[in-house]
């Protein structure tokens, strides 16, 4: 009986080692909130040529933080990261393929060649 209780306790401790403490998660959420506020600030103030790059960087940082800490990818097996990143790379490939077919493969009149116009 003691052995079972000890193994359950070990399993629980393993879960605790698996991520951050509650306070750690709250700190992460505060950081995400601040980053969102900075993102929204770009709508009210003119950041000039830095606007789009800064928005993209903030988006990637927020994405990375949620994946690493809330989704535990930082603490889990790399296999899960590979599975997820494969999906992301394929999604970007879809974007590149669609962009190529709809933007670059156009005739001088601006018509989409795939529509035979």
């Amino acid at each position, binding site marked *: 009986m003691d052995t079972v209780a000890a193994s359950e306790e070990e399993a629980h401790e393993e879960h605790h080692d698996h*991520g951050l403490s509650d306070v750690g*998660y709250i700190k992460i959420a505060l950081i995400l*909130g601040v980053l969102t506020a900075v993102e929204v600030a770009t*709508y009210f103030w003119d950041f000039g040529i830095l606007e789009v790059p800064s928005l993209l960087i903030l988006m990637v940082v927020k994405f990375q933080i*949620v994946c690493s800490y809330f*989704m535990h990818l930082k603490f889990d097996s790399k296999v899960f990261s590979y599975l997820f990143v494969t999906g992301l790379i394929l999604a970007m490939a*879809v*974007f590149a393929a*669609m962009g190529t077919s709809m933007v670059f493969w156009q005739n001088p009149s601006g018509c989409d060649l795939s529509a035979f116009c």
Partner: protein
Amino acid sequence: MWAFLGSDCLLFGSLISTYLLLRNRVGPATSGPTAADLFDIPFTSVSSFVLLMSSLTMVLAVTSIQRAEMERCKLWLLTTAALGAIFIAGQVYEFTSFYREGLGFTTNISSSAFYTLTGFHGVHVSLGIVMLVTMWALVSGGQLGPERAETIEIIGLYWHFVDIVWIVIFAVVYLIP
């Protein structure tokens, strides 16, 4: 779950790509405003913040069940579902106000792409709410305990995924001019 999330990346990758390529095209035979003409950024910012904070309450629900704190787990699960419901209510309000401004699903190519993208995301959030309420009912009924904490962790992965998709949509669709 990770394989499913990877494949869901493809779905949203396709929908976001479609919107980006069609965002300024109203089509030759149709007219009307584009979604970007009608965005209410302060309102959507609050919705985004609500969804972001629901990821915090979700992760707190997971840590609670791992520590066998069942009452706290139930509270965080319900809070997460409530925050998700607030987000969906905001999306319904946004869609309704856009429709009243003359932007329907078939108004132009741009509006179809916008409603399809944000609508699919809304369906994902709604399904997440159903899963969270189901988890709450199972925990309340004693059918889900700390020994099966992985179940809630897996639902949490889905919820965080819905959140990161919105992070991309909010930046790329709403904020980038």
